[in-house]
């Protein structure tokens, strides 16, 4: 097992029909057949709402490629669960608007092309869930 190759996280977006099922199926099938280790989750949104501690584990690796939806949504979903992604170490592959072949090719590629949007606030600086004042 190489510690150089980025980890892979696939989101199946189980509880909505926003990603073409044919795209999801083709990406997942290629991943399954690749022999690669990977993490697959039913629905990142659901995990974020539950503040599933697994998100910290998934975000905390060295580098990660995430096949899900829009990078801006993925960035702030993880942040909302107290598991900010490192913009320098994360590449999000958008299955909502990129062809399946592109997503699969990027998942298989050994390099990482970080693409989280950056702005005035780092995800780590954002208000922390659980720190509610009870207002």
């Amino acid at each position, binding site marked *: *097992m*190489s*510690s150089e*190759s*980025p*980890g*892979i996280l696939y989101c*199946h*977006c*189980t*509880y*909505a029909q*926003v990603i073409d099922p044919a795209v999801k*199926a083709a990406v*997942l*099938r290629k*991943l*399954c057949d690749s*022999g*690669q*280790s*990977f*993490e*697959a*989750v*039913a*629905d990142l*949104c*659901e995990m*974020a*709402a*539950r*503040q*599933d*501690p*697994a998100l910290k*584990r998934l975000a905390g*690796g060295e580098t990660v490629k995430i096949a899900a*939806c*829009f990078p*801006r*949504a*993925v960035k*702030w*979903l993880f942040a*909302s669960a107290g598991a900010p992604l490192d913009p320098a170490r994360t590449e999000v592959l958008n299955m*909502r*608007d990129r062809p399946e072949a592109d997503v699969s090719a990027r998942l298989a590629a050994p390099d990482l092309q970080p693409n989280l*949007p950056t*702005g005035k606030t780092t*995800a780590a*600086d954002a*208000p*922390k*869930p659980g*720190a*509610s*004042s*009870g*207002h």
Partner: protein
Amino acid sequence: MALRDQSYLRVVLYEGNDAEPLASESRFDAVSRLLNQGFALTRVGVGGRTAPADDRPALVLGQFRAGLEPNALSTENVRVKNISGLTGEQIAGAVESRRVEQKAVQHGGWKPWFPVIDYDRCTNCMQCLSFCLFGVYGADREGHILVQSQDNCKTNCPACSRVCPEAAIMFPKYKAGPINGDEVKDSDLQREKMKVDISALLGGDIYSMLRVRSERAQSRFSKERDSDKALTERQKCLTKLAAAGDIPPEVLMSLPSPEEIMRRAEEAKAKAQAALAAQK
């Protein structure tokens, strides 16, 4: 039980050393079924990295080679199961039984629909907090806006994203950008800004509009004793709101009474004011 207090089961499909890889079709079938049932899964193959083990219950599935006794490898928290010869359906059934045994969360009971704030855009104006009647928003100790009760959000209702002047509120499962997380373009921002004040679009404050409509309906009700008419009146009002704010009619129909709406609106306003005061 609150969403955040539930426990869950980690499933590991082991195809590394000492295990026979599954046939391509069986693997895809098993993985797809588990994801469709709401489970998260780690596939351990011959290369690549996976997230480290943690202390939550896990079920390790594999076609283990002869001589490896799954029971001997199991611990209280980590159960190892030989899946040689099992169909995808049987594998999914075994995982579900383990979930029940562990009293882990049953997925799929709730569509994960809730706002996600883009803090790169948010100016902490608290309009969303004052707008939401369902207590979805709150503030941290420093007075920063937070989404604090995701499961209070009304499924498929993106109304609060319409009141955000900065297009900072996303619903990742929404159909269109920028609410779904797609980039915010200048033209979007103009459009969102135009929608800032839903009440302006409707020609009045929505809460008072609901109240006035309700009063009118009530007085007619008392005169005519025609409950259908009162309901039709409310429906008409809600339909207008739905068209203006992209709010599903069923969500609007489940709104509390106008009096309760007023009470909650006051409460939300007070919360927002307290949060704004805390920022100073």
